[in-house]
């Protein structure tokens, strides 16, 4: 597959702050790529570098086969952008902003624009200063989605949108994927990323800490199991791949690595299972693990009694 954009060992500093610290990011043509990271991790900085708004201190940037700093006009005709902070001109109506941005990009499909206005239920006659946060976001979103381009750079595009509009946005992204367009989606909403993204990059302190397909990442994650047993829960700790065992009488809860799932279920069955709940790995878990300083999330419930503990940090 061809590469739509790539950052290689990218460094960007602001004064003494190292906003991007040898960041690697690679997005293939036709994929929807999730870009995750805590506040201040450097997501917006990375997008601004891709737009040629910021100079880089070191590293390589490639965008649609060109250099975003030098080939501004040619590259920007082929992409659309939703900024993280949407500020509109107080005196311009939403419709005017959408048209203006479309024309500056090199043309606007009127039918598509009107269809999106309808889908996102936006009143285009209101002035910029009169829109709520969600509606300002819609203006920027419609302006970008109305563009017939190869690449969409979306910086938390659904912030401020209600759930119905969020669903509409996801539908739009699915359509874009079906049409073979490329999307880089910076987001905090994990359900959104899980729903629409093919691959994900997690960034923290300006560095990519994890990247891969959702399936790959799931493999790195642990399934959470809670069970009510007939027998003693002790001994479970000794099983390979089982972590964070908490037992309270006959109830037991623990996390288990994906590859140890089979053996663990057998061991449970040997003890006699009366009740069982299994939570598949979520992105949230991985997300939290990388976001919180000092290793895995502390998830102990206060009333549970830890019968044994493990070394914790190791994932495999």
């Amino acid at each position, binding site marked *: 597959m061809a590469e739509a954009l790539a950052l290689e060992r990218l460094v960007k500093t602001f004064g003494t702050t190292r906003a991007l610290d040898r960041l690697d990011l690679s997005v293939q043509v036709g994929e929807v790529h999730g870009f995750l990271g805590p506040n201040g991790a450097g997501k917006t900085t990375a997008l601004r570098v891709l737009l040629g708004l910021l100079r880089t201190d070191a590293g390589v940037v490639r965008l649609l086969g060109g250099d975003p700093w030098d080939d501004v006009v040619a590259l920007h005709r082929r992409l659309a952008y939703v900024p993280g902070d949407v*500020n509109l001109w107080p*005196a311009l109506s939403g*419709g*005017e902003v959408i048209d203006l941005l479309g024309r500056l990009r090199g043309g606007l499909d009127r039918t598509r624009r009107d269809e999106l206005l309808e889908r996102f239920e936006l009143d285009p006659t209101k002035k910029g200063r009169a829109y709520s946060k969600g509606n300002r976001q819609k203006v920027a979103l419609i302006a970008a989605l109305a563009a017939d381009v190869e690449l969409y750079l979306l910086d938390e595009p659904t912030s401020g949108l209600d759930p119905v509009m969020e669903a509409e946005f996801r539908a739009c992204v699915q359509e874009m994927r079906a049409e073979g367009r490329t999307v880089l989606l910076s987001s905090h909403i994990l359900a959104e990323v899980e729903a629409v993204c093919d691959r994900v990059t997690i960034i923290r302190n300006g560095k990519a800490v994890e990247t891969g397909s959702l399936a790959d990442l799931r493999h790195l994650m642990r399934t959470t199991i809670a069970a009510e047993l007939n027998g003693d829960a002790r001994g479970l700790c000794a099983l390979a791949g089982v972590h964070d065992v908490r037992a309270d009488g006959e109830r037991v809860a623990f996390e288990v690595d994906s590859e140890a799932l089979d053996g663990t279920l057998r061991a449970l069955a040997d003890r006699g299972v009366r009740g069982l709940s299994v939570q598949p790995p979520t992105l949230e878990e991985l997300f939290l693990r990388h976001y919180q300083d000092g290793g895995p999330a502390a998830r102990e419930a206060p009333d549970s009694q830890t019968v044994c503990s493990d070394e914790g940090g190791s994932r495999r």
Partner: protein
Amino acid sequence: MSDFAGAGQLVRLALRRDRLLMPMWVAVFAFMATVSAAATAGMYPSLESRVQVAETANRSPSLVALYGKIYAPESLGAVAMWKMAGTGALMVALLGLIVAVRHTRAEEENGRLELIGAAAVGRFAALTAALLVAVLMNGALGLLTAAGLVAAGLPAAGSLAFGLSWAGVGVVFAGVGLVAAQLTRSARLATGIGAAVLGAFYLLRAVGDVQGGSGLAALSWLSPIGWGQRVQAFAGERWWVLLLLLGLTGALTGVAYLLVARRDLGSGLVPDRAGPAVAARSLRSPLALAWRLQRGALLGWSLGLLVLGAVFGSVASNVEGFVDDPDFREVIVRLGGERTLTDAFLTVELGVMGVVASAYGVQAAMRLRAEEAALRAEPLLATAVTRVRWAVGHVVVAVAGTTVVMAVAGLGSGAAHAAQVGDAAQVGRVFGAALAHLPAAWVLVGIVVLAFGLVPRFGAAGWAFLVAFFLLGELGPLLELDQRLLDLSPFAHTPRVPAAEVEVAPLLWLTAIAAALVGAGLVAFRHRDVG
């Protein structure tokens, strides 16, 4: 009283935000007054020299229009503080206006007031805090100025009267700002309304003062700027006039409180109309957007300068009649230029309008940084628009707008003057003279663009340069500063037309400097981070 809850906190917040800016301005004004007083004392040590210069000034209509009258020719203080009472008060008024809008409508427009309004803060708190801040600032400004004047050797009573007259004018226009802030949703427009009111009052004072003994002289009494001068510091102080200033401040504040009680947070008194659902065909370039964003301000400035020009122009031909003593005539003609008294008057007034047009250019070019800082440049630069093309849009509006504003001022002056003297040829002559002030104004636009490209954080540098150049022209000769220092100001190189002959060379190289500054600014902007 719960309506006022939190005002104290907000005062502290405002003082924290302005902890550098406010003391700096207060110090600049006090310093200006002190230096001016000390320098004048050195320049006119004898009573005769003072009386002579004061009488010359009082008989020169252009000077009276510009600065007002000297109420006691024999008083050192009155002569020394004459210019400061005129143009200084104008700047104090502008400061009061800007501070009032900055802490009310500007905060409301950008949504910060909502954040604060959600806390235990009464609905009058923001207004009250802005009022208190303005009073504090102007009080400090007045007292510090008075102290400076005493230190410069002027009598204490007069010094106090002078300081308080500045402070009084400052709080009146803070009151004007508080009212304007209630009328519109846009802080920019609120400041514009306030500035228009200030301009109108200045004009009333100028016309009233020039008319001298006639019935129109009463016009000066309709203007708070006029009141400030009629406190007559150092010329038999009339303390009761200060009460007029306080009373008007009280009345304006009362109106602001009434208005704020009648509207919702975030709204103005004039409701927003719906805009078009589809952009006009012409809105398709950065230049078109810049024009769309700035056309309202350009219209306002143009109207203001048209009126200013027309008033000055219609007064110009009366000027000759005021001076009957042929010796005096000669002195004034020599002071103002080589032609007639009328031309001397027109020259001075066109110079004033040239500074105003420069102010227009500075604020128009500062839109670049304002748009960038508000993150409104980012979505545009993410389209197929280069940085330079985006920036040039606003630069064109600033340069062309300055030209329009000055041309309108020239047309207003020329047409009014032509109508008075019945000579249509005067229109073209005054218009041409007005255009001679453009290159200097463009240089200021260039300075703003260069600052934007090199050090975007110092966005207000344009104002600092404008004020510095203006003060160099006003105070420089008084302080007997080195000519090379005075020559730093572009205004110093504008030929004194129509009183003197046109010199083309300085106009050409001022234009070249302006172009070089703009070019350097754009290159610097091309090479820096945006945001």
